[in-house]
């Protein structure tokens, strides 16, 4: 057992932290969000080519630095600290994760483009009726010659307006909620028959509703592995989002602490009031436990599926609850100024709020944990 990061990992984190400190202050972020594109592509380009960080989690055979989930977690935590709007989760963690798992020619074809920053992937998995059930899918991929024909509607696809590729879940067979017959496809984002309705999300990102109408895709778009592969990729994404949450929560706590020392009421800083001190201690404990859970789940990502899913669900349930607690109490402690757009704190709160539900709420993950761990042992 060893709970320390190695030297390379420390360097990777420091490199990103320094870069973001220089380029991603709150005002700059707000300006990026306000542009038509909703982001500054120069940042992504710099991450890829100046810093070489987009390869941190890929093997050397693909031109990466040889890391994996731990490196993803370190970077996601740093992104969380500045509430970054970069497509790292979708492109590297999810798209890259799926490609690493299937390996072979598909990995060799796409990973270099991810590392160089040219390829941006959006993950089109959610559907309006599906909630968090990854197998609750209407979208179909019907075999047609050597390829498939895609039809369906995917909802709230983060980063889709920027994507060069879409990672799509679709049915090749089976009924709506059946696990069998669900497959994963990596396709060009601009194929004929794909239409998008783009919009901003409440946490400052961009997303789309995506409609597939008789979209012809090639046979080698299929990333073989079915729902088990999708489960694995989404588990990795879930833990990455928890790592992001630890950055967001740490900043919510830190910002609240700083503000409480400055804000004067009744002739003294409000930090002197014990009721607020104890609340900030409770927030601190949630931040620490979120870090612990993220470490726990990260170290379970390579375990057999049942163990992995149990650990990931415990992690997400705890982090979701913690993110809510820390976010709400950060706003409450700030008072009126906390509910304005003026301070960064409210924007961290918005991201924390959406993280709560991303890839499953606390209730969803407690359900999954109970089903996999408690019922199984009964």
């Amino acid at each position, binding site marked *: *057992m*060893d*709970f*320390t*990061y*190695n030297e390379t*990992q420390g360097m990777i984190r420091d490199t990103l932290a320094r870069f973001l400190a220089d380029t991603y202050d709150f005002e700059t972020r707000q300006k990026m969000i306000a542009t038509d594109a909703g982001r500054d592509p120069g940042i992504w380009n710099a991450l890829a080519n100046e810093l070489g960080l987009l390869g941190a989690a890929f093997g050397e055979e693909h031109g990466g630095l040889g890391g994996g989930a*731990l490196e993803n977690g370190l970077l996601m935590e740093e992104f969380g600290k500045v509430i970054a709007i970069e497509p790292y989760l979708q492109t590297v963690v999810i798209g890259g994760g799926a490609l690493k798992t299937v390996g072979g020619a598909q990995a060799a074809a796409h990973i270099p483009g991810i590392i160089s920053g040219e390829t941006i992937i959006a993950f089109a998995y959610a559907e309006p009726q599906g909630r968090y059930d990854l197998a609750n899918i209407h979208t179909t991929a019907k075999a047609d010659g050597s390829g498939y024909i895609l039809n369906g509607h995917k909802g709230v696809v983060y980063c889709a307006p920027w994507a060069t590729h879409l990672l799509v879940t679709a049915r090749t067979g089976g009924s709506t909620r059946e696990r069998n017959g669900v497959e994963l496809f990596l396709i060009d984002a601009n194929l004929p028959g794909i239409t998008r309705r783009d919009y901003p999300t409440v946490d400052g990102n961009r997303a789309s509703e995506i409609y597939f109408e008789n979209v012809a895709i090639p046979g080698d778009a299929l990333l073989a592995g079915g729902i088990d592969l999708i489960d694995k990729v989404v588990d990795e994404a879930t833990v990455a989002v928890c790592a992001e949450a630890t950055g967001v929560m740490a900043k919510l706590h830190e910002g609240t*602490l700083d503000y*409480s*020392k400055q804000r004067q009421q009744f002739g003294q800083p409000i*930090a*002197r009031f*014990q009721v607020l*001190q*104890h609340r*900030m*201690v*409770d927030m*601190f*404990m949630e931040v*620490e*436990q979120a*870090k*612990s*859970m993220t*470490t*726990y789940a990260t*170290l379970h990502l390579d375990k057999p599926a049942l163990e992995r899913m149990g650990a990931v669900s*415990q992690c997400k*349930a*705890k982090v979701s609850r913690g993110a809510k607690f820390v976010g709400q109490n950060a706003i409450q402690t700030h008072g009126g100024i906390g509910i304005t757009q003026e301070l960064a704190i409210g924007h961290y709160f918005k991201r924390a709020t959406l993280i709560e539900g991303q890839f499953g709420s606390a209730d969803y993950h*407690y359900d999954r*944990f*109970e089903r996999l*761990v*408690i*019922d199984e*042992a*009964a």
Partner: protein
Amino acid sequence: MDMEFTAEDLAFRDEVRAFISENYPQELRGKQDEGDELGKEDFLAWHRILHKKGWVAPAWPVEYGGTGWTPTQRYIWSEETARADCIRLMPFGLSMVGPVIYTFGTPEQKAKFLPRILSGEDWWCQGYSEPGSGSDLASLRTKAVRDGNDYVVNGQKTWTTMAQHADWGFFLVRTDPDAKQQEGISFLLVDMKTPGITVRPIITLGGEHEVNEVWLEDVRVPVENRVYEENKGWTCAKFLLAHERTGIAGVASSKRGIERIKDIARSEQDGDRPLLANPFFKRKVAELQTDLTALEFTELRSLAGEAAGRPPGPESSLLKIKGSEIQQRITELALEAVGHYGAPYFRGFGEGDNEHPIGPDYAHRTAPSYFNMRKTTIYGGSNEIQHNIIAKMVLGL
């Protein structure tokens, strides 16, 4: 970073398992499980076996009799002893005064007391709290006045756990009544057989006699039994409290506690299904188990820091707060699980009552345990005090 055991770790685990299964006293098996009240000889039986093996004080430096285990080995040890339901050794000598003596004591004090703590020859108790000094420990008033080579001690201590068995006690006493509160306190080692000491039982909610009042009337304590400098006892007290808090998380035994609740809830029927299939009950178990995982990994992170040379600091208050809350929730859920049969009070039966016990065995101690464990958020510095410590020492408030 990884959480895999090395081949050496696994060999160590097998060695520990084999040792426990071959050496844990037959008459103690299952005792902890049912929450039977344990006597002095029960604790000492296991203590002596571990001492003979050299494993009684894993946390101590090797030079004083520690095992030199890695943090991983210590983790394995606590896991395996909990897994086998071994009783927990009394902490007052091994985890509390022992570390104070080897950290602050004179060579003579170390030579005299440490071997007898390790062997179990001396049973220790802790003289900290007073009727007027609970959370505000530094307001203590038991006073020690220098008279030649002795201190003459007068005052009253309370909540003194297992003092009825104690050979020695470590006491915080006021040696300078004029100094600022924390600055006039000294740390004394007191022979409990000294004339002038009276121990009186306090019976707690579950009916147990665990804690006592200790009265001191003109008790003469040789100056050589003072640890560290006069009026600097608070330094020892703070050190001890931080030490006490890390062990207080109780992760391994809480894991067993949750498994016990699941066993109960599989046996108890709730309509046409086991209680564990009741979604509301099951959710409480899932939340408890998740919170315990969070505590376990927080403790492991803190142990990793310790291995890297950072001593347990104020963040160990977090382990105390969360660990004690979880211990309480376990007893709360166990009592909830047994339904009606939490009610019968076994101490209500006369001596020699040979009737068949009432209700399922697993129900007998659920209510007393629940009542008893309310202590966990109060002792060792109440959880509110732990909040104050984190606020001040970690958050800088």
